[in-house]
């Protein structure tokens, strides 16, 4: 009779479908995970420096080293370049911050804690959404610091405060869509170094092959064409327009299209890869 044990099927039971997690549940889970990520920053305040330091150095470098000559080409001088490059800096930070999300996430993944999260009855997107929320917060802090530096080196808002806020919002939106790409990399790649390596390879051409640091008119034709389709140019142009009261329509449409497109494609991939990682 003992052989029968193995052939007897498990007793049949009525299967009630899994209940859905309500909005309140999602908010509670995401909130708890955001709190976790904020405690990380509290534990390790230097991690904030990574986000702030590079844009500050870039701002000072470009304003003081290249600023004079590019400014002359712009038909002004040092001051004209400051007005040109600061909106670009803000746009640039969307990518810098996004790269960090992938590295941090990958480190998390190689520890047991992610398995624990995945064995809990929570929506699996909440781990990723919490990560993005905290990185956006980090972005806002970094932008605040860079704006303070910008005012010190002679940037004038000229009353376009609304435009400034709108540029920050657009940067955050675009940044979050880029973060989904890095989350996919973070889940799929073996270690944090490879995520950083690939991130760097993608970031460099997109940041420098754009209108962030200099007008694209004097670039060779092939590069100028690249910058036209580069979303970083769109974002930088839109930010520049909004902060100076110039034309925004083209840059704004382009940035919104890229942001929505990337999120719609990458977010489901990231969540699925996270859910199915084994």
């Amino acid at each position, binding site marked *: *009779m003992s052989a*029968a*044990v*193995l052939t*007897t*099927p*498990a*007793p049949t*039971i009525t*299967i*009630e*479908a*899994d*209940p859905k*997690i309500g909005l309140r*549940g999602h908010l*509670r*889970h995401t*909130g*708890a*995970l955001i*709190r*976790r990520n904020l*405690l*990380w920053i509290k*534990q*390790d305040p230097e991690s904030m420096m990574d986000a702030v330091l590079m844009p500050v150095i870039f701002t000072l470098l470009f304003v003081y080293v290249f600023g004079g000559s590019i400014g002359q080409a712009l038909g002004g001088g040092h001051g004209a370049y400051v007005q040109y490059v600061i909106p670009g800096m803000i746009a640039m930070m969307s990518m810098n911050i996004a790269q960090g999300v992938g590295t941090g996430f990958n480190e998390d993944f190689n*520890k*047991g*804690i992610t*398995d*624990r*999260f*995945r*064995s*809990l*009855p*929570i929506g699996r997107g909440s781990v990723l959404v919490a990560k993005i929320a905290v990185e956006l917060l980090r972005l806002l802090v970094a932008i605040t610091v860079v704006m303070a530096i910008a005012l010190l080196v002679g940037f004038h808002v000229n009353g376009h405060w609304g435009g400034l806020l709108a540029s920050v919002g657009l940067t955050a939106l675009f940044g979050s869509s880029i973060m989904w790409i890095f989350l996919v990399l973070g889940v799929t790649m073996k270690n944090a170094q490879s995520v950083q390596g690939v991130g760097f390879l993608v970031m460099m051409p997109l940041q420098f092959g754009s209108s962030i640091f200099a007008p694209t008119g004097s670039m060779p034709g092939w590069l100028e064409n690249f910058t036209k389709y580069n979303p970083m140019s769109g974002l930088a142009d839109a930010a520049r327009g909004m902060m100076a009261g110039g034309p925004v329509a083209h840059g704004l449409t382009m940035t919104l299209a890229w942001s929505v497109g990337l999120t719609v494609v990458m977010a489901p991939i990231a969540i699925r890869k996270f859910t*199915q990682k*084994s």
Partner: protein
Amino acid sequence: MTRIDKHPESGRPVAVSVRGLVKHYGATKALDGVDLDVHEGTVLGVLGPNGAGKTTLVRCLSTLITPDAGRAVVAGYDVAKQPRQLRRVIGLTGQYASVDEKLSGRENLYLIGRLLDLSSKEARSRADALLERFSLTDAATRPARTYSGGMRRRLDLAASMIGRPHVLYLDEPTTGLDPRTRNEVWTEVKGMVRDGVTVLLTTQYMEEAEQLASELTVIDRGRVVASGGTDELKARVGGRTLRIRPADPLELRPLADALDGLRLTGSATAAVDAETGEVLVPIVSDEQLTTVVGAVTARGLTIGSITTELPSLDEVFLSLTGQKASAPQDVRPELEEVAV
């Protein structure tokens, strides 16, 4: 609602029921049709070498991976069809401590409580109660990365207990721990079992299985090679070997003769290891140890020292499957001193 069904044959309630579970990784069959049952309120030890499929089994049962075929029901919930409800009734402590190193012990437990939908007040009081229970109150506010290996495992166990799980999976809970810390973890696990938690424990240590489990399933290369009560399997393996050294080396031969006459396990007899000056006697129970000591004393012989040698996992496998374990082992025969 948690539903526990009775085992069709034994009539005892079954908390975990696995039938024909299969999981492939490419050409590798990590699980190749596993059947097992964990009875309500008991500990089932799943014993096997590295790469036997133990961790894959636990990951299937905790919904981290989806099996390719077969069926598993935990506390009445189907692993494949009701993952979310199932996650509410299980606790998981993996091979690597799954706590957030940067958070304090209390924050770790609070986080899990919130993710399990406790109110923030409930989550806080549950965290404090568990810190107390696992003797971590003093370290509650320190980041987990400053904890010792044993504290980390205790925190890990505490985190698994937040949701008052019906079934707890312990995946090699003491791998990499020193013997003292291992004992600490065992004590905690025994406490949880006393509270009525059903445990599925994977281990590569025979000793751990003996300490904690009442029933054993031995798996190798994704298949169950033996299952039954701990004592039953131990008897099949041959139990332990006593090494007895007489106080007077000249008494070696008389000692061997005395022990040979006992005919303890039927087939095996006492053997003399001339090199070490010891007599080797196989035994299967602690009672037999007493019998041996009694017999020696009755003959007026004095014992210098006794050590017991436990069968290594290699020997278990050799005896159960007739082949060497499929992966290299870090488990050697363990010697333990018996005070005389």
